[in-house]
């Protein structure tokens, strides 16, 4: 296998290397020179490339927008201008030997994506020649609004990319799904490649521990990257595009390119903004009076009637004035400050040193007190040319992000975070008792009447202000390269890079918190260091055969080795809280502190190749082949082969194609095989466990094989077909459409083994999932003015629909995800053959029974085996056994949206620009677990709706059942579709108004450009969802248990003002 790969590649490379000899001999030469200016502003354009089509000749423009190309053979040439963010332009020039001919370009800024150069992995390609499904986001689009992390940028900007917020807290994780979820147990996040370096980004791996809390969403692994450093992002979606990343391509690939040096004189940019955030939406909960009224009604409606707040108590509380709005207590106005200074340029025109240097500071305060993040980052990109054939360069990025991970989001009861606790704490409790200690609902509410059965949830203010939970991410990412043009057509590039990422998390629960008070303070420290080395060696051959054929052949060999080393420790019983986690050894835990450590390493070795072939500018072919050898694959399956092929046909270039309105029309078709290396290191190996026995009364240690190895464990395999078209009309409207069918097999699941093996189960490759979908993108200059003061209107519309279906589970028919909460033991989402991944499973209800006649008409019994009564929720008996029981549960909802969309509009007029992104989703259910508390018993606070719209004999057309025990009439560990809500929403995600100061105001002050802007984020959301935010998946970043809201951190509405200055 390996040898075969190498032989094939060697032959291909040898063939490629032999070609240059056949190049046409050169005749006498002339020069081309000229200036490139922006047609709108009239400003010279720096760093633009002008190339002679069909040759390697070309030059970049200097600060005056001037370029000169020497050594151009005499004759007529096509001269092409290219620069990201501008429409390419081609013109003919005739060069006479020994003469200089002038060719000026007037170019226009253009965000129509089709006309840019895009990163395709191990190289770039002209957008118009791309045969796979590749979306790209340019820096112009990226910097219209302040953005905190890279993955946020993907939201609403590219069809087929679904970004879901796992936690809105500063530094919180997002989940990104490209073309749906295609794994059950594996990582489904796309592969991120930053400046050519593939980043290990498995969010399931809570490397530095969870601070002793269950099910907290892990922090965002991309938070160390400053978005302002980014030049462009490419999103590789179909298998043809991602196959160059082989075994890591199945979830899509996001290629991030940071800013490079260009031009000659230094260009400084200062970007500063400040923002204020507030909670966008709150729960409407009862005040003290309403709460006590509700509690008394509830007491009367209970099987053991009681009055928790008799008149004397009621009046005393009312006159005490205690009426705590717990949401007020924990929410705050969060302040965000960002400052970035960068400089880029080049030293000289001939053998330039190009550089881009930046430093950034970012500080975001959360909308919940106690939460926040601060990031410091620095980056240097350097390239040095030695003549025009040799280049060395490198990138170094260093960043540290410190997150205050104080428990704000989280579950209920003992695991509650401040948000969930604030929804539960009742308004009749003060924040602090008269003696200065924090109130505690379990003791303080039960003191009124212990039939209230208050939960063991800690005080929200204590959680937010007392717990020390600090998380630090440091990352040093560096990648160096050397590149040599061995011949005119053949380039060798060797890179060596290292990614060093360190994360630690230190937590202390002092005595002022419930948890700390129970163990006299608890300190937890966790640390993990990941180091990854990368070496890549590629040979690229590119040749244009006299304008009729264009061939690019890439061959390469890469190696990556990654190791992780982690430790954690936990201690309790501190003499006092003074030293917190800093002196963890001071704790005197019985039996000593608990400590653990772990270590894993993994390696990846790959051969890769790609051929791009273009014939007559209209028949396009891309072939890709990558062989990945991964240590994570089992002994018999170390190597996997990932081929793909794609064809494109530019119909508009056919001689017979005579549709004047159509500027460009291209059809694409691709098929490929890619993998998801969901296996974690060592998972294919057998594992020993110890079990002792005694001989002659002496205990003796023993080791046995506890988990059987699977020497055939391998990657999850995705086969994907994609058909697409790209259409450009009138040079101003671009339409892109794709349909795809993605089938993933070899899913990694635990399968049961015959008992005779000595084992119960083992990890194996079984099962299959399908994702099918449609993606549409429309990009248009609706109004295009002729000059800089004219009115321009640019619009971009994205639409994506993905249908997910579980095809097989290797013989099993269904698998339940882990219980949704540790507090309620609710069954998790269900994976069932024939259904989408992770559907909700529970009882169906049919509204509140209005009166006794309607109740009597229900022939079946309720969950308690009794007849239904008026005021109860009607639960359906689906299996017809005349009683509501566990057999009546069914699939009641799917968290995956039917379709998602995004609409960006940009208006320009006289230096003013107004741009806004509307995005949303249709369909998709959310399980709002918070409502279990806010709509049932007065052990926690209750929503106003629940109280006012409850069934009573006089209010029979009610949304909610009568106030009393178990209103839904199902068992305690189940739920009905009442808890499911529509996750559909339409949101004005961002709107930005900016003003580019006129040149006359800034020119004499040393500025070249200055821009002031004000941005509003999340100003408006249309949704029926009753929780903080329908874009939520608070339970998990994994593939199951999505669309669940348990004490999720609320969405922030942010106003930002900023300035960008170039000088």
């Amino acid at each position, binding site marked *: 296998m390996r040898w075969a790969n190498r032989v094939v590649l060697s032959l291909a490379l040898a063939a490629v290397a032999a070609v240059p000899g056949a190049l046409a001999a050169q005749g006498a030469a002339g020069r081309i020179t000229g200036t490139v200016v922006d047609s709108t502003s009239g400003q010279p354009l720096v760093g633009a490339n002008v190339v002679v089509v069909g040759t390697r000749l070309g030059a970049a423009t200097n600060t005056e927008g001037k370029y000169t190309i020497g050594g151009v053979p005499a004759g007529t040439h096509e001269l092409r201008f290219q620069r990201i963010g501008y429409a390419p332009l081609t013109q003919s020039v005739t060069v006479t030997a020994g003469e200089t001919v002038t060719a000026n370009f007037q170019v226009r800024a253009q965000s129509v994506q089709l006309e840019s150069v895009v990163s395709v992995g191990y190289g770039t390609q002209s957008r118009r020649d791309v045969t796979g499904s590749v979306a790209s986001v340019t820096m112009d689009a990226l910097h219209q609004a302040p953005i905190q992390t890279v993955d946020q940028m993907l939201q609403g900007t590219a069809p087929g990319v679904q970004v879901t917020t796992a936690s809105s807290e500063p530094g919180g994780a997002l989940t990104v799904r490209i073309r749906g979820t295609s794994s059950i147990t594996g990582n489904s996040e796309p592969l991120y490649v930053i400046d050519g370096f593939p980043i290990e980004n498995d969010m399931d791996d809570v490397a530095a521990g969870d601070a002793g809390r269950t099910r907290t969403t892990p922090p965002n692994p991309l938070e160390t990257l400053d978005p302002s450093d980014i030049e462009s992002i490419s999103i590789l979606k179909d298998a043809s595009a991602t196959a160059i990343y082989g075994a890591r391509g199945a979830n899509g690939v996001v290629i991030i390119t940071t800013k490079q040096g260009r031009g000659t004189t230094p260009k400084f940019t200062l970007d500063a903004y400040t923002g204020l955030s507030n909670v966008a939406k709150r729960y409407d909960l009862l005040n003290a009076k309403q709460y006590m009224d509700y509690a008394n009604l509830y007491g009367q409606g209970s099987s053991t009637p009681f009055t928790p707040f008799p008149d004397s108590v009621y009046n005393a509380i009312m006159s005490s004035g205690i009426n705590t709005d717990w949401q007020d207590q924990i929410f705050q106005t969060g302040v965000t400050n960002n400052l970035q200074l960068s400089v880029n340029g080049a030293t000289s025109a001939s053998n330039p040193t190009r550089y881009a240097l930046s430093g950034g500071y970012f500080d975001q305060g959360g909308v919940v007190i106690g939460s926040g993040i601060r990031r410091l980052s620095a980056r240097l990109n350097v390239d040095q040319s*030695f003549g025009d054939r040799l280049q060395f360069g490198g990138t170094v990025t260093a960043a540290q992000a410190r997150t205050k991970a104080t428990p704000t989001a989280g579950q209920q009861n003992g695991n509650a975070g401040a948000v969930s606790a604030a929804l539960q704490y009742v308004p009749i409790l003060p924040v602090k008792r008269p003696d200065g200690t924090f109130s505690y609902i379990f003791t303080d509410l039960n003191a009124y009447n212990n039939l209230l059965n208050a939960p063991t949830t800690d005080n929200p203010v204590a959680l937010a202000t007392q717990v020390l939970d600090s998380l630090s991410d440091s990352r040093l990412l560096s990648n160096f390269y050397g590149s040599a043009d061995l011949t005119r057509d053949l380039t060798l590039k060797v890179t060596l890079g290292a990614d060093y990422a360190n994360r630690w998390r230190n937590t202390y629960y002092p005595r002022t918190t419930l948890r700390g008070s129970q163990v006299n303070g608890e300190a937890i420290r966790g640390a993990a260091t990941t180091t990854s080395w990368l070496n890549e060696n590629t040979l690229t051959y590119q040749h244009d055969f006299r304008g009729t054929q264009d061939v690019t052949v890439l061959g390469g060999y890469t190696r990556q080795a990654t190791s992780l080393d982690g430790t954690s420790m936990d201690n309790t019983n501190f003499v006092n809280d003074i030293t917190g986690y800093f002196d963890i050894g001071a704790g005197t835990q019985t039996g000593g502190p608990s400590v653990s450590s772990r270590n894993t390493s993994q390696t990846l070795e790959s051969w890769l190749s790609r051929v791009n072939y273009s014939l007559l500018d209209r028949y396009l072919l891309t072939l890709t082949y990558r062989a990945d050898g991964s240590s994570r694959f089992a002994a018999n399956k170390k190597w996997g082969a990932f081929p793909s092929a794609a064809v494109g046909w530019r119909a508009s270039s056919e001689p017979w194609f005579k549709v004047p309105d159509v500027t460009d029309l291209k059809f694409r078709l691709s098929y490929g095989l890619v993998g998801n290396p969901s296996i974690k290191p*060592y998972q294919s190996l057998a594992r020993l466990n110890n079990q002792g*026995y005694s001989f002659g009364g002496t205990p003796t240690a023993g080791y046995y*094989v506890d988990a059987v*190895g699977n020497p055939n464990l391998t990657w999850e395999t995705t086969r994907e077909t994609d058909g697409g078209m790209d259409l450009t009309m009138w040079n101003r409207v671009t339409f892109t459409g794709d349909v795809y069918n993605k089938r993933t097999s070899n899913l990694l699941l635990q399968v049961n083994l015959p008992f*005779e093996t*000595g084992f119960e189960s083992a990890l194996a490759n079984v099962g299959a999932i399908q994702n099918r979908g449609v993606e549409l993108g429309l990009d248009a200059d609706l109004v295009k003015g002729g000059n800089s003061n004219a009115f321009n209107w640019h619009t971009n519309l994205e639409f994506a629909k993905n249908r997910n279906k579980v095809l097989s589970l290797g013989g099993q028919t269904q698998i339940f995800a882990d219980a949704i909460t540790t507090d309620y033991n609710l069954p998790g989402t269900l994976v069932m053959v024939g259904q989408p991944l992770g559907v909700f499973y529970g009882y169906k209800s049919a509204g509140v029974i209005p009166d006794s006649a309607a109740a009597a008409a229900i022939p079946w019994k309720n969950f308690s085996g009794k007849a239904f009564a008026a005021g109860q929720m009607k639960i359906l008996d689906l299996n017809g056994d005349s009683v509501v029981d566990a057999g009546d549960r069914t699939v009641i909802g799917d968290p995956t949206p039917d379709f998602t969309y995004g609409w960006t509009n940009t208006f320009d007029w006289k230096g003013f620009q107004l741009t806004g992104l509307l995005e949303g989703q249709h369909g998709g259910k959310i399980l709002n677990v918070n409502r279990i508390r806010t709509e049932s018993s007065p052990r926690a606070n209750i929503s106003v709706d629940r109280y006012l719209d409850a069934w009573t004999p006089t209010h029979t057309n009610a949304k909610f059942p009568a106030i009393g025990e178990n209103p839904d009439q199902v068992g305690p560990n189940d739920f009905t579709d009442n808890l499911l809500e529509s996750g559909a929403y339409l949101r004005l995600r961002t709107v930005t108004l900016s003003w580019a100061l006129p040149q006359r105001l800034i020119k004499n002050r040393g500025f070249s450009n200055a821009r002031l802007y004000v941005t509003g984020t999340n100003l408006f959301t249309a949704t029926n969802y009753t929780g903080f935010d329908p874009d939520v998946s608070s339970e998990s970043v994994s593939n199951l248990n999505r669309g669940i809201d348990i004490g999720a951190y609320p969405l922030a509405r942010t106003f930002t003002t900023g300035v960008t200055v170039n000088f």
Partner: protein
Amino acid sequence: MRNPTHTIRRAVPVLLAGALLAGCQDKSFLTENPQDFVAPTNFYKNENDALSALTAAYATFVDQNSPLSNSDYFGRNLFMLIEYPTEVTTSRLSATNERSLIGDFHIQFSSSHSYLQTVWEAAYHGINRANTVIDRVPSIPMDTVRRAQIVGEAKFLRAMHYYFLAGLFGGVPLKLHETQTINGANTARASAADTWAQIEKDLTDAAAVLPTSWPAGDFGRATKGAALTLLGKAYLQSASTGGSAGDFQKAVDAFHQVETLGYSLDPNYASLFDGTNEHSKEIIWSMQNVEVDGAGGYLDQWFAPLTSPSIYQAGAQNQFQAERPFYDSYNPNDIRKAGTWLTSFVNDGKTVTWSWTSGIQSSSQYGSTGPVPRKYLDFNAPSNGAGGIDYPYLRYADVLLSLAEAIDDVSGPNAEAYSLVNQVRARAKVPPMTAGLSQQVFKDSLYVERRFELAMEGHGVFDMRRDWEFAKGRVEANMAQMKTLNKSPFTSSVEKYDARPIPDKWKLYPIPVTACELNPLLTQNPGWDDGVCKASTGQ
């Protein structure tokens, strides 16, 4: 400016060298070498590793790591399957309790009984651990004598698991190598003859390499005597349940060899089971228990009388009691009665005594109203699963009685046979057996003698199946008698002892249905068809 061509001439080799250097193949680049856990790749390297693997194979008997629990095998479920069916002991629970189903030959007992699965699973778990030793140790560089002994010990353990499986279920799938992959995991049942032949082979191999004794600190390891004793028992069991009659003589030969190894009956019967005499000359092989959670015995909890407060931290459950007709049938002088059953003990400084009519907690489901097993009770056990008293499974009295039985099967009772039985009876302080019995009556008498001598030691249903018609009749008669005594010792059920005839399908237990669901090749035993396992083929 430097000539670019010159520069490139120097730079390119550097780049190429870098690329080639990286491309140099070291074959181990993709090999996984875990460091933070023990894996086969970093284990089985030396004598310590070999001994550790062997220890874990022994530990199957006390293991409580998932998927096993210490009640799955000899800690309860295997023991219940073996002991409940005889007339010696009862579960004392209501008729439809899953435990009662076993001793009552209940119509509801089926292949889905959970104990069948746990015993099946635990035995194969133990077999796999033994296979690991047998497969891996021979290539470990170490002292060759000790190495052969380690493999011999593992073969003894493997044979014992197969002995239990064959005695309970008949022929079973023969797994003779460690499971190293999940492919091809399904194996069909071997014939009973092949299964017994494998047991014979393992024990013969083991007997050839094992020493006759170990130093005190290694007590509990398999010895030559243990291998030969189990071999003799296997021949006897096989020959008596449809196997080759020639095996009776092989049994005689094996037991005769054991006689030469220096074992003797201990004058103090009770001391063999109370922790005071665990290394007696009578003990050939015993399961080793220490008062350490996870390495101790679990039967205590199921034997111990229910008192308030419980004598055990987590509460005794007392699910074994003497059956009254059997209890009443002891010779009054028989020292084995007091050595086997408990009717009083000291708790919190007070002596607690009970009888058939005055239960300690008769209102409780677990109330003890009759004598409970005395054997293995450890009143100092720190917790459940940490009983410190060894379970003697192979002891010399069994050898003497089994040899007598084998001689009887070969040639009818001769003087040697009577002498063997009477050695055992003399130690028990009961009169000698009178000579002149027929071959069958002698065999029947041995069945009865074994009940008194070996009660609660894990031999019951095996003995029953060797003398099926007699034993069946005796158990049925006992049940009829129990029915008339239905007030005691059990608390709840009249239906329980319904004196129902015992169907002959009970000559074998059914293959657990869950095993068939996972391995479709398995066939069911006669009379136990369940619609899932393939129909019986008369194994």
